[in-house]
């Protein structure tokens, strides 16, 4: 009996593998036909759809898919339909490397979009350089090792659509000193994140440059829940602002617990605050005098932005966040580059990406700099009762 069961199980496995492989082969044939007729252009989407940063990946992909749907509905790129090939890297860098290789060698994509976070994106850079296929991320903001390698050479096939952490840290420090007239600041940072590390470093150097003082610097690690020890300690200090570089999961709790303890000083953060979860965790009452730098603001009166917000809300039923907006820009940006390149040759597309001038997007218009970073402005958003109430635009350096 047992032997029969084992045999049966083996059989099921084998059948599954064979039929599955058959399916894969059929897909490849379709793709081959598509290439011959050049009626479609394949773009890889390598994002964190599961795992610990799935929220960013998911949001970016929604924006990208919306852009692709719009372009395809309008007849595609010069008549070619965009075929997105979506894969999930589980928020794991080794998986991101493997999938980038899969997209580039098995699926013959023209370009790969994503991953959303810097570490996973960096893991795909050697693959792009080796296969000579461009990759673009809309949200990999790390300062070092992204578009420029350690020796200072520009990674020819690597692009991004966002400013880096330096610019965010510097902007928030200037905002604290100039707009909030702050002299003393407290820093509570996520010690386990490279992103927070970069922000804190640049905030400190700029803030001290404006004559300010960092009174206390405290740290926590991701997934911490109770910040009362840190907050009680800083409560006894004299300070004007709290700078809180980190992600929304912890930032929401820090803000809530700080306000509960009676700390009313303004709280500053960066684009990691941009999630509806922040409001859920902190509650509307606590989210007053909270400012964070972001890629775009829904308060922007620009008709392009308002049209996007209306269309997005209609499609998905919720207001878009910055990752949605960046994803949308990313989708349009790659389509625009392929159109300007006039071909689906990855090298021609790479040149078109690098030569971008005055691309108008939801997250601001930009030209691609020589270091493959966009030259674009930053928005500082102020929250009142948990709702975005003010936005200040700060131009590129």
């Amino acid at each position, binding site marked *: 009996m047992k032997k029969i069961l084992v045999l049966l199980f083996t059989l099921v496995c084998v059948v599954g593998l064979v039929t599955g492989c058959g399916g894969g082969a059929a897909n490849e044939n379709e793709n081959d036909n598509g290439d011959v007729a050049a009626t479609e252009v394949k773009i890889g989407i390598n994002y964190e759809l599961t795992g610990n940063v799935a929220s960013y990946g998911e949001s970016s992909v929604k924006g990208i898919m919306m852009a692709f749907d719009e372009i395809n509905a309008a007849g595609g790129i010069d008549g070619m339909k965009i075929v997105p090939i*979506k894969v999930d890297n589980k928020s794991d860098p080794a998986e991101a490397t493997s999938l980038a290789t899969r997209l580039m060698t098995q699926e013959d994509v023209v370009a790969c979009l994503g991953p959303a976070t810097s570490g996973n994106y*960096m893991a795909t850079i050697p693959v792009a350089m080796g296969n000579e296929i461009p990759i673009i991320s809309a949200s990999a903001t790390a300062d070092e090792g992204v578009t420029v390698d350690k020796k200072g050479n520009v990674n020819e096939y690597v692009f991004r659509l966002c400013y880096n952490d330096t610019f965010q840290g510097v902007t928030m420090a200037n905002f604290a000193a100039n707009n909030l007239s702050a002299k003393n600041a407290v820093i509570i940072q996520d010690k386990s994140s490279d992103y927070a590390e970069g922000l804190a470093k640049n905030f400190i150097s700029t803030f001290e440059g404006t004559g300010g003082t960092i009174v206390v610097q405290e740290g926590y690690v991701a997934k911490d829940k109770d910040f009362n020890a840190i907050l009680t300690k800083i409560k006894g200090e004299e300070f004007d602002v709290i700078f809180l570089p980190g992600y929304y999961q912890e930032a929401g709790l820090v803000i809530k617990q700080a306000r509960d303890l009676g700390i009313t000083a303004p709280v500053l953060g960066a684009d990691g605050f941009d999630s509806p979860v922040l409001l859920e965790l902190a509650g509307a009452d606590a989210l007053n005098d909270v400012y964070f730098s972001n890629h775009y603001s829904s308060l922007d009166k620009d008709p392009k932005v308002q049209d996007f917000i209306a269309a997005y809300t209609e499609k998905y039923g919720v207001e878009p966040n910055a990752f949605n907006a960046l994803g949308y820009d990313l989708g349009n940006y790659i389509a625009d580059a392929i159109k300007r390149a006039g071909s689906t040759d990855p090298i021609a597309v790479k040149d078109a990406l690098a030569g971008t001038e005055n691309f108008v997007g939801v997250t601001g218009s930009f030209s691609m700099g020589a270091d493959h970073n966009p030259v674009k402005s930053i928005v500082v958003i102020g929250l009142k009762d948990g709702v975005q109430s003010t936005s200040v635009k700060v131009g590129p350096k």
Partner: protein
Amino acid sequence: MKALTKKNLLILGAILLTFTVVQGLISVGIINKFYEITIAMICINIILAVSLNLVTGFTGQFSLGHAGFMSIGAYFGAVINLQMESTGGFLLGIFAGALAATLVGILIGIPTLRLKGDYLAIATLGMAEIIRVVFLNLDITNGAAGLSGIPRYTNWLWLCFFTVATVLLINNFIKSSYGRACISIREDEIAAESMGINTTKYKVMAFAIGAFFAGIAGALHSSYFYFIRPDIFGFLKSIDILIIVVLGGMGSITGSILAAILLAVLTTYLQAFTAVRMIIYALLLVVIMIFRPQGIMGTKEISDLFKSKKKDERIG
């Protein structure tokens, strides 16, 4: 020469043949870069699983900290490789990583291996977390940002070499008197002790050897995947390795090898089914565990299957 028996020559021939065939397929391009990644995954997982099997399967010490040793190898390998971008640096990194992992294994093994069962599991889990947090806070490891741009020297030659070396060395260890001592500890620790076996010594020995090979696997991983950061080597990675061991059969090297191949092929194959792949993966594990609770091979090796029926029951 006793070493040149017919059997050993056969094994050597099989290894050389496998190496040449795969190398040939790679250079012709039938195995492309993508399938090469799967092969690398298989080799690295074999090294990890076989070395953990020595600790968990053969010596019977339930360890949840294997990813910690892997991370030591990975970081030593990466840091040395980034300083010395050459094959020499790569090999030096591997051995430095493996030795450092062994050292940590001995240091941690001596106090914790006095514990048994779930207590040991928790202690090793804690150890792996400590290692991870240390790497998170060091400057040389670049903290949470991790190390990027690690040059790739890991190729089929080295993967094959280290995998074969791991399997052969651990296999020989198990078949030696040391290995039999380890197995006796698994079967009954009190009985083993009463027979005059220094249980702590053999447990630490198995633990250190396991750590050594985990370090090698880690260094190969960092050099193959360009990028490492502390959270890759978390608790879940240890569990992944344990799954391979349990699936293959605790106490079967062949089982670990088969399970490593099966799971890597499965993962690669399921990449195409983004939404449901984790469900299918988990379901398969559940099904296998229901029908083969002792793992694919149980405690048998492939060589047992070819032996005549009248063979004695293996101790291992």
